[in-house]
């Protein structure tokens, strides 16, 4: 681990020296996180069947690599408003292999406009574009119900950032596109102690094709159910992402929240999602105490059932089976995750914080086939997070 981190630092130095003519800035961030579940092994095994990505990969033994990460960012100022940025990231889950997370060109057009082009952190929701920089927020990682299904992601394309102000409010509009199928706009309004965020992203493409349903779709079409066939087909579907958030820091009181809705148009297989979280916190000198409630709610789309006779047969994996089997598959993906996090952050150094989070996760499974209706799991996590 140390060896790999060292190579990352050397990479940073190499970039820095190879462009000695330009002004170079080196910044970085790191999270050293350890965690474990607090449940008996049996309970863990049972809950694991439901939890998959929401358990941070922890078991009942303290593990350090699941969430630890180390990033370094080098920006070379090429003068006249032009600069190049590269961010390298090594994560414990990838055995600390260093990957080039982001590389982009920035052009500061004027006081208001800034254009980034290349591979950049994607501003999908309120915290998505700096989820890896734990130092910048109270929790060890973004609330799981909200951010569990969209980890640190990047977008290849162009982002324009427009800054202006009206009275005492600073406004930022951030339209972006991958020049193909994704169009988004993140808007931010800040007044001294409060920041409001709104994001709308439309994605129209062959984003998540699921060939398994081609046969099911075709069999419905052959039976004369054109609309239902289209609902079942998981190709060329459009996704719509929408989120509203706030971030308040007033007289050492903290309140952060976000509501997001994800809808898939003309698609039945992907569940619509409603995710939200609320955080309240209080800063007392160098300590910040906080509590968070977050939910990910998936709602199966069963539009395709409308107008179909109850016993309609459909091709599932090569066999003609009753439509209820297909419905069972569609329902299977719909679960509700709820997490309560109690945490404390201790700013023991000007650029480093120690955090402890206790998380209680509850999962309700909408699918009765699996047999487990609800599972509960507790986690304890520790982290040292820093920026430089």
């Amino acid at each position, binding site marked *: 681990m140390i060896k790999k981190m060292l190579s990352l630092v050397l990479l940073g130095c190499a970039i820095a020296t190879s462009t000695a003519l330009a002004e170079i800035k080196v910044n970085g961030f790191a999270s050293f996180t350890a965690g474990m579940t607090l449940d008996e092994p049996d309970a863990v095994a049972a809950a694991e069947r439901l939890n998959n990505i929401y358990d941070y990969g922890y078991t009942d033994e303290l593990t350090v690599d699941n969430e630890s990460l180390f990033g370094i960012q080098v920006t070379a100022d090429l003068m006249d408003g032009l600069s190049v940025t590269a961010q390298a990231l090594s994560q414990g889950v990838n055995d600390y292999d260093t990957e080039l997370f982001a590389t982009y060109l920035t052009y500061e057009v004027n006081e208001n406009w800034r254009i980034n082009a290349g591979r950049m952190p994607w*501003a999908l929701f309120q915290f998505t574009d*700096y989820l890896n920089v734990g130092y910048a927020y109270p929790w060890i990682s973004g609330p799981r119900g909200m951010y569990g299904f969209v980890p640190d992601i990047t977008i290849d394309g162009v982002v324009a950032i427009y800054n202006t102000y009206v009275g005492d409010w600073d406004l930022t509009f951030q339209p972006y596109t991958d020049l193909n199928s994704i169009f988004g706009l993140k808007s931010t309004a800040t007044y001294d102690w409060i920041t409001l965020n709104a994001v709308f992203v439309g994605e129209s493409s062959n984003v998540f094709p699921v060939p398994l349903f081609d046969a099911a779709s075709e069999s419905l079409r052959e039976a004369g159910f054109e609309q239902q066939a289209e609902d079942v087909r998981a190709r060329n579907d459009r996704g719509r992402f929408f989120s509203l958030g706030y971030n308040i820091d007033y007289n050492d009181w903290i309140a952060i929240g976000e509501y997001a809705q994800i809808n898939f148009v003309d698609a039945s297989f992907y569940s619509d999602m409603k995710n939200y979280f609320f955080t309240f916190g209080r800063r007392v000198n160098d300590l910040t105490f906080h509590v968070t409630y977050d939910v990910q709610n998936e709602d199966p789309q069963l539009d395709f059932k409308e107008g179909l006779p109850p016993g309609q047969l459909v091709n599932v994996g090569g066999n003609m089976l009753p439509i209820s089997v297909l419905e069972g598959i569609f329902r299977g993906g719909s679960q509700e995750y709820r997490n309560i996090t109690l945490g404390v952050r201790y700013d023991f150094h000007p650029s480093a914080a120690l955090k402890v989070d206790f998380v209680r996760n509850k999962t309700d499974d909408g699918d009765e086939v699996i047999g487990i209706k609800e599972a509960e799991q507790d986690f304890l996590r520790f982290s040292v997070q820093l920026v430089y």
Partner: protein
Amino acid sequence: MKKLMSIFLLLAASCVAAADVAVVVSADNASAVSTDDLKRIFLGKQKKYSGGDSIELILQNASNTLDGEFNEKVLSRSPKQMKAYWSKLIFTGKGSEPKRVAGDADVVAAIAASPNAIGYVEPASVNDSVKVVATF
């Protein structure tokens, strides 16, 4: 005697509160800078002087006491909140952190060398090459 003592203490206290941080620009800089502007300028939101020249921010190292005092008094934020603020801009590609220097002498030297620079120093460090636009 007691009265005299309390007046003296009061005076001393008001002196301390009156001028601990001086915001300075080049003596050649003719732009008017208001207190409201300062907050926006030092948060990197306002990038030009009223006259249209680009602002060059000179901050002091975050470990300096004066940096903490400036953040509290002018920006109403703690140094760690400012650290988080700049981190957010840097790592999302929305901005870059301004130049930081070691202390008052470096701030004065940087401003003397660049007519569009702005920074903050202790009032005692002010010399002819710079002009005080506000004290806190």
